[in-house]
């Protein structure tokens, strides 16, 4: 058999073939929509980045001003690219791990259409100035509710899969995904309640939501993917069930309480902030546990990282998760926060989380899932490799200089002898480096989008074997 992953051909309703056939249209549609918003979000990112060191660039038009382009970049990346692709990947993972076909398929496709329309309307709203004005929640409440409702409907499909599953035990990935599909609609619903629109209180809700959107929606999906793909590609079971359990419930217990570490030094009551700092430090436990679990699974099989596109992206993502989480715990400490709060350091930190961890994880997942959904192969080894290196080098070039710049900015800001203007001036070289990194990342995204278009439309000759970087190793 030339292509390894198609060898399991039988007609039972639990066969991989059958499940992937049912998953095809909803998951492909979600991933393709996500990729579209990734490209749009990248364009906005470049605009915002260049505007930071060239303020007159496209400065004449109100709808392209920095204060509108930057929030729209965040919203399209978060609620477009990462949420849509994440939801697609999560559904596919559930179908595989629970051995049950994705239910409600026409509804999922329907809400994905509505989701896209909501993002489009929301984009026009933000660019024309109709913003809710809260970071991570810039879409007006009415638009946000539609998006949350779409994710809720997909979440109902996920719950149905849990209850109609054809396996007895629940794999780790399932816990995380089920949790994510419960948490996001709750988060979105609570954050939209008018009771939190009172002054100052809103800031607390704001950062409770924003931190949890990463911690309780993207992180579980990213970790679910890591827990599935690492053992799958390496061909060994996960190292320890006990550690998985500890990692999951540790995350659920502590991550929920992290949000107020964004409000250190703010007028909100200090004891809430202190609770969040404590919880942020406690996050070290689940993070280290997950890292050990993943490392012990891969150890001895590191050559697979060299050969498998999926594993390379996923391992990069998993390592970034460990790094960014430990960094986050340190950042929450008052003494560190005093320096890095209000600086570009935090922006870079957020990008290690959303890009080096979540986005790389989603790329890796797509490289595994799409050939199985389309019964086709990736058209080019070289382009996948180019995508990996553009993304990897791009995000390192983005975050390392910007974090250095951020620390210098913070130290200068805390020294009253330095004029404020100098604290801004010294960041300019780092901001220019970020624009360069943005070009690399965008180039990687264009390559990825091109490969996705090729594989979905099945252009070109069908390769003999799965696209990996060594012919003898097969992904199954």
């Amino acid at each position, binding site marked *: 058999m030339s292509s390894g992953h198609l060898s399991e051909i039988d007609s039972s309703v639990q066969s991989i073939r059958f499940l992937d056939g049912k998953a095809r249209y909803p998951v492909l549609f979600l991933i393709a929509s996500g990729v579209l918003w990734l490209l749009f979000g990248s364009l906005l990112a470049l605009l915002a980045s260049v505007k930071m060191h060239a303020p007159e660039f496209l400065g004449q038009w109100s709808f392209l001003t920095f*204060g509108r382009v*930057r929030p729209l970049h965040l919203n399209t990346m978060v609620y477009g690219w990462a949420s849509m692709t994440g939801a697609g990947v999560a559904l596919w993972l559930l179908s595989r791990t629970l051995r049950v076909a994705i239910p409600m398929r026409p509804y999922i496709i329907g809400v994905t259409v509505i989701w896209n329309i909501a993002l489009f309307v929301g984009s026009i709203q933000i660019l024309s100035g109709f913003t809710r004005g809260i970071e991570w929640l810039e879409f007006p409440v009415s638009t946000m509710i539609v998006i949350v409702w779409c994710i809720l409907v997909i979440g109902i499909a996920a719950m149905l899969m849990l209850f109609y599953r054809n396996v007895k035990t629940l794999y780790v990935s399932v816990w995380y995904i089920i949790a994510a599909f419960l948490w996001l609609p709750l988060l979105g619903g609570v954050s939209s309640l008018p009771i939190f629109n009172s002054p100052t209180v809103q*800031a607390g809700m704001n950062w409770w939501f924003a931190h949890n959107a990463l911690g309780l929606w993207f992180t579980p999906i990213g970790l679910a993917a890591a827990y599935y793909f690492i053992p799958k590609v390496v061909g060994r079971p996960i190292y320890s069930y006990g550690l998985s359990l500890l990692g999951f419930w540790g995350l659920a217990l502590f991550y929920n309480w992290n949000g107020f570490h964004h409000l250190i030094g703010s007028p909100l009551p200090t004891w809430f902030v202190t609770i969040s700092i404590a919880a942020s430090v406690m996050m070290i436990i689940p993070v280290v546990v997950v890292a050990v679990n993943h490392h012990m699974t891969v150890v001895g099989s590191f050559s697979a990282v060299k050969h498998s596109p999926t594993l390379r992206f996923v391992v990069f993502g998993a390592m970034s998760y460990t790094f960014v989480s430990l960094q986050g715990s340190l950042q929450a400490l008052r003494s560190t926060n*005093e320096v890095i709060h209000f600086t570009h350091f935090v922006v870079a930190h957020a990008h290690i989380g959303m890009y080096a961890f979540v986005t790389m994880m989603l790329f890796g997942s797509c490289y595994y899932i799409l050939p199985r959904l389309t019964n086709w192969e990736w058209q080019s080894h070289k382009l996948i490799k180019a995508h990996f290196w553009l993304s990897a080098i791009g995000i390192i070039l983005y975050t390392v200089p910007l974090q250095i710049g951020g620390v210098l900015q913070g130290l200068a800001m805390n020294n009253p002898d330095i004029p404020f203007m100098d604290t801004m001036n010294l960041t300019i070289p780092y901001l220019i480096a970020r624009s360069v990194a943005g070009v690399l990342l965008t180039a990687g995204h264009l390559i990825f989008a091109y490969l996705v278009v090729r594989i979905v439309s099945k252009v070109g000759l069908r390769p003999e074997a799965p696209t990996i970087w060594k012919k003898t190793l097969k992904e199954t």
Partner: protein
Amino acid sequence: MVRNWILLFGIIAVFAIAMVGLTILPKLVVDPRVEAVDYGNTFEIVQGHAIYVREGCIYCHSMQVRPEGFGADFERGWGRASEAEDYRNLTPHLLGTMRTGPDLSNIGSRQPSVDWHMIHLYQPRAVSEGSIMPPYPWLFEVVNETARPNREGLSLPEEYRIPGKKVIPTDEARYLVAFLLSLNQQVPGMED
């Protein structure tokens, strides 16, 4: 099936407890301090707040002063430490997370000149050399020198002047400046 329900219950429970702790409790504690209506906010100030939100000023300017001894906010003259009461009547909140530009909690007292703010909004580099703040020309009208005889144009430096034209602020610019000038810790009513 029991396993399903344990999982679902656990997931909802940890979420609900933290939600009460970090959103409902702060609301109960803070609301009594901010619910009194601040009658000092005029129509112009409220409109200006909306324009501040619309143009995304928050992405570069914070509006919270950290306590003395924590950072150098006090030494920089940005004002006393912010209190929950300072933000009455202002939603969305404008606490901010970034200081590409300086904190604005006390800008009305630090820079009380209307003309300075107008020029700064129209062309930041005309009054603040090396600034990377974006210009906001859509808050201004460029008209012929002879038009609107009762309206004076901005006194821009030579290099930013347009021959035969004058730049006059629109109502939106006036509102935004009124809001900025209201950010003044000396004003009674913001202080109590």
